[in-house]
């Protein structure tokens, strides 16, 4: 899925609101502005730390991932990929491969031009991996190589080879304007203008991509390592011309995706076609190298911010131009943070994308926002320095309560102020250098503290479905066609059901990861918990109503007089009148299904967003350019937290990923070979356990019943958005020069220090 479709999903499936809401809607919104929302109810499990219900299975190796799937008669499929960044395929000869004993199927997957190294060309399926590998070597492909360009800066040259036949190498990506920026800059006392760049970050999930496809007459079952079982099913239905009703997609456990596993992939279609040809199940697993060339990455950006402000910090104008690059696909629109987060009457955005002969980018954990937060928040810190102002104070000075920079719809709730407060206290904000680089430090070591802000969507998707099944023997099942991509969805499902039904999480049997189950959205966009938990809550509340009626009949009391707790139904007025759960369930006589749905939210009146503030403390060695993150505090407004342990893990993961992308990770492309030079985990460097600091995770615990029946918002991406930015700003505070480009490798830190030296 590309970032554009992804963001549309993340917004809850609706399109962007007009820049100026209709006056009528505005009046309505004002009228609907609530008094302070009521408090969250007292919960027994929701919001408390619950150990993962599947923890034991995972750590003992019993959890079955797609890579573990073994079906009877299963073949191994392998895919031949173009080594060239651009070439004309003259011919593909499968015959020598098919002649090899043990090879059961072969396919041509490309004709005409290939436009990036790693593009699928042919596939084989054989009885084992060695045979399949040998067979791949026997496929004869004749290429006529064409000029190519993989360096996005060179791709902008008029002389560069044209990447796509249908358009020039540079195309418009996004444009936005409100107010009059020229007037705004005219009113400003201080104007800064700087360029911030972000590199190519590869998703690199622990579990590489893969699918197992099996036909049973005309029914296709696919085990897929995916974040979107329903999406894969629908995509396969289109690609295979099979009714969606005849396809089942299953994913029980997954080792991460980060946005790179959101749709029906070309290799999944290849597996299904090979399986059809061979009449046997086929498994296709991608390699680590494949992860760097053909299943996406976070596109690069080169963002120039021009910001004007009054002496007191009040913003008057904000202008952003961006040049993104996402290979043969589009780059990301990074403007959202600039457009939305700070109060500013005028704002102008112009973004372009550059095409290169590299695989298309894909949505990656908060696409656009992560890059945008790095640029915008860096610029805000450099503005604060120019104004001689506390960076946190500058952010508070321009706090908005409506979206589109305080010109749009009111936020239904916004706990960002509380996040600033919590995070600043936890990191010890007062210890920062008053001015960037003005701190001490022993020898070559300089310390600094930085902050960065995040905004993201993540209020969930109305229409998400879940069932609760009560069995007469007392067992309870919760079923939802969502997927647990490693974040702890099983646990939150059990927590919500147990809380509502007066049981314990371990009493609940959780079923997910099957596209035959009730519909739920992709696990991307931080949608899973705010979509699924309210649907389960809804189903469970219906079950409670029914159970209370049954219990009331048994106890001969009013249903309204019943409390459910401690595995009993009891009369409030006469606690002696009580019946154990098991007896009441038995009275149901047969299994009973309760359907739940995540209801709508008033999106025409309010903006629903998640917020967060991250604080980092770093130490920089100014002689070697090495950065160490010493301490980190993250505060998130994700509404009601459902399962505190897994929520904390999400935040720690987001910080780890941002630290890693901020200091180490970068895919390096080479124009001469048209390939990345580091398609592995040795030269594509990911932070190790030793690089991760002490982390404090805090939640603002904002209660807002307008979001959904549990006041839950998403968390996965909010935890990632500001993490590279906070570290970069801390580095700025430490050394007095902003590195302005991630990853901040020793090379770049030393170059930035030289820039500072040259300037002074």
């Amino acid at each position, binding site marked *: 899925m590309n970032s554009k479709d992804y963001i549309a999903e993340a917004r809850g499936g609706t399109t962007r609101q007009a820049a100026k809401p209709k006056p009528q809607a505005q009046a309505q919104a004002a009228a609907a502005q609530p008094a302070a929302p009521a408090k969250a109810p007292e919960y027994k499990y929701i919001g408390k730390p619950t150990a993962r219900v599947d923890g034991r299975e995972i750590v003992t190796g019993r959890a079955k991932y797609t890579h573990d799937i073994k079906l009877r008669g299963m073949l191994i499929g392998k895919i031949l990929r173009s*080594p060239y960044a651009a070439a004309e395929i003259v011919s593909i000869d499968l015959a020598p491969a098919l002649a090899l004993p043990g090879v059961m199927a072969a396919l041509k997957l490309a004709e005409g031009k290939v436009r990036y190294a790693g593009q699928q060309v042919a596939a084989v399926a054989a009885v084992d991996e060695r045979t399949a590998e040998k067979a791949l070597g026997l496929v004869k492909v004749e290429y006529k190589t064409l000029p190519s360009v993989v360096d996005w800066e060179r791709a902008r040259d008029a002389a560069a080879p044209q990447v796509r036949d249908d358009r020039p190498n540079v195309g418009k990506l996004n444009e936005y304007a409100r107010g009059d920026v020229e007037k705004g800059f005219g009113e400003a006392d201080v104007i800064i203008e700087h360029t911030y760049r972000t590199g190519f970050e590869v998703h690199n999930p622990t579990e590489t991509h893969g699918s197992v496809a099996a036909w049973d007459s005309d029914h296709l079952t696919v085990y897929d390592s995916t974040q979107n079982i329903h999406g894969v099913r629908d995509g396969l239905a289109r690609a295979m011309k099979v009714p969606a009703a005849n396809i089942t997609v299953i994913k029980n456990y997954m080792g991460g995706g980060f946005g790179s596993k959101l749709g029906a992939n070309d290799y999944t279609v290849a597996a299904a076609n090979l399986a059809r040809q061979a009449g046997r199940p086929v498994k296709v697993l991608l390699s680590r190298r494949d992860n760097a060339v053909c299943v996406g990455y976070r596109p690069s950006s080169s963002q120039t911010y021009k910001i004007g402000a009054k002496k007191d910090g009040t913003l008057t104008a904000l202008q952003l131009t961006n040049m993104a690059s996402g290979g043969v696909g589009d780059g990301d629109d990074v403007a959202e943070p600039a457009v939305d987060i700070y109060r500013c009457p005028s704002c102008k955005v112009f973004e372009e994308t550059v095409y290169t002969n590299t695989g298309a980018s894909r949505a990656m954990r908060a696409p656009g926002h992560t890059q945008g937060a790095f640029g915008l928040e860096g610029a805000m810190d450099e503005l604060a320095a120019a104004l001689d102002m506390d960076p946190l104070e500058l952010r508070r000075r321009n706090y908005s309560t409506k979206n589109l920079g305080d010109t749009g719809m009111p936020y239904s709730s916004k706990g960002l102020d509380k996040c600033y407060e919590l995070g600043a206290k936890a990191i010890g904000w007062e210890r920062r250098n008053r001015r960037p680089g003005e701190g001490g430090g022993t020898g*070559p070591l300089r310390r600094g503290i930085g902050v960065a802000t995040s905004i993201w969507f993540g209020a969930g998707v109305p229409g998400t479905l879940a069932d609760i099944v009560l069995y007469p023997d007392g067992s309870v099942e919760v079923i939802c066609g969502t997927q647990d991509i490693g974040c702890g969805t099983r646990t939150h499902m059990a927590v919500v059901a147990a809380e509502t039904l007066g049981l314990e999480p371990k009493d609940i049997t959780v079923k997910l990861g099957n596209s035959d189950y009730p519909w739920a959205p992709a696990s991307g966009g931080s949608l899973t918990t705010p979509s699924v938990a309210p649907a389960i809550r809804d189903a469970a509340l219906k079950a409670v109503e029914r159970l209370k009626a049954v219990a009331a009949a048994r106890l001969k009391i009013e249903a309204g007089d019943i409390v459910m707790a401690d595995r009993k139904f009891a009369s409030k007025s006469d606690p002696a009148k009580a019946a154990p759960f098991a007896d009441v369930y038995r009275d149901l006589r047969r299994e009973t299904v309760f359907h739940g749905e995540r209801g709508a939210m008033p999106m025409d009146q309010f903006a629903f967003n998640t917020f967060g503030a991250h604080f980092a403390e770093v130490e920089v*060695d100014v*002689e*070697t*350019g*090495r950065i*160490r993150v010493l301490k980190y505090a993250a505060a998130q407004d994700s509404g009601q937290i459902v399962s505190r342990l897994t929520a904390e893990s999400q935040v720690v993961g987001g910080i780890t990923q941002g630290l890693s992308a901020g*200091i*180490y990770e970068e895919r*390096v*492309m*080479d*124009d*001469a*070979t048209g*390939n990345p*030079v*580091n398609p*592995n985990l*040795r*030269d594509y*460097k990911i*932070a*190790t356990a*030793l*690089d991760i600091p002490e982390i404090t995770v805090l939640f603002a615990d904002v209660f807002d019943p307008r979001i959904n029946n549990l006041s839950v918002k998403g968390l996965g991406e909010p935890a990632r958005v500001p993490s590279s930015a906070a570290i970069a700003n801390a580095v700025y505070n430490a050394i007095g020069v902003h590195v302005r480009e991630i990853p901040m*490798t*020793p*090379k770049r830190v*030393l*170059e930035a220090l030289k820039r500072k030296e040259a300037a002074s």
Partner: protein
Amino acid sequence: MRDFKIAEPRTADELAALLAESTESARLMAGGTDLVDELKSGVATAGLVVDMDKVPGLRGITAEKGGLRIGAMTRVVELAEDAAAGRDYPSLKEAALSLATPQLRNAGTVGGNLCQRPRCWYYRDPQVVCRKKGGFNCFAYQGRNKYHAIFGGSGCFIVFPSDLAPVLISLGAQATVGTAKGDKVVPLGDFYAGPEVDVTRENVLAKGQFLKSVWVPGPKPGQRAAYVKLKERSTWDFALVSAAVAGVVKDGAFTEIAVVMGGVAPVPWRLKKAEDALKGKAVSKAVIRQAADEALKDAVPMRENGYKVDLVRAALERAVLAAI
């Protein structure tokens, strides 16, 4: 991975004979942490893999002639944990502990570490045939070269990746090479040869020869040594630049000194000019800076590795100050 045969010789002579007589392309395997990776990715092919593991007498650390003999098959972890080595050669222990990860130190050997192949990302790409692999071009020269050499490149700009080699050379170690005609001894510094000698290899081993052991002379009175490794992340990282310094200190000055850098050249790189500039002078930051300036006159950075010049300064200063 292509199919290959595997041989398990039981004596050093049998090993040398096998290597010398093999008509197929034979590759030695010690711990296999580097070789197997090369074979699997297709960077290297072998008709015959000769496993050294069953040859007796190649593994272990023993006192000899006042110094220590380290067998080629000694695991890196065994060197890191050896009490005598730790006491007499702290910089060697530091280097052993700084390399790779615990898993790799458990499996990888000292001989394998000293004979490991380069990490140039073009060399490691099975699709690329560069000069080192018999092709005509060095892709790094015009291409992506932030990890490449600033000294001694000549048609090939790899950096020699071993952490043990610079330290052992700074300590005056000698290599014992096994051949079909008996052993021979060479200073470890002369064991390595740059691309100007043979671009396809990094050392002087001829067909039929292998590294049997290294011998480190006993510490002299007043001997001081240090190893400083600069890298990007905290662990599981090769040196961007490293500095091994060893010498004899009297009254705040080095009367003898060896400075050997890692990560900067196709072989462990001795900074003779820096040694000369440091020798006999009371050590101070100014003196070290001067020494670095002298040595860096020979540096030829490429488009993306100029920052290594700064790292050489930092590593040299830190290693000298740590040693003294």
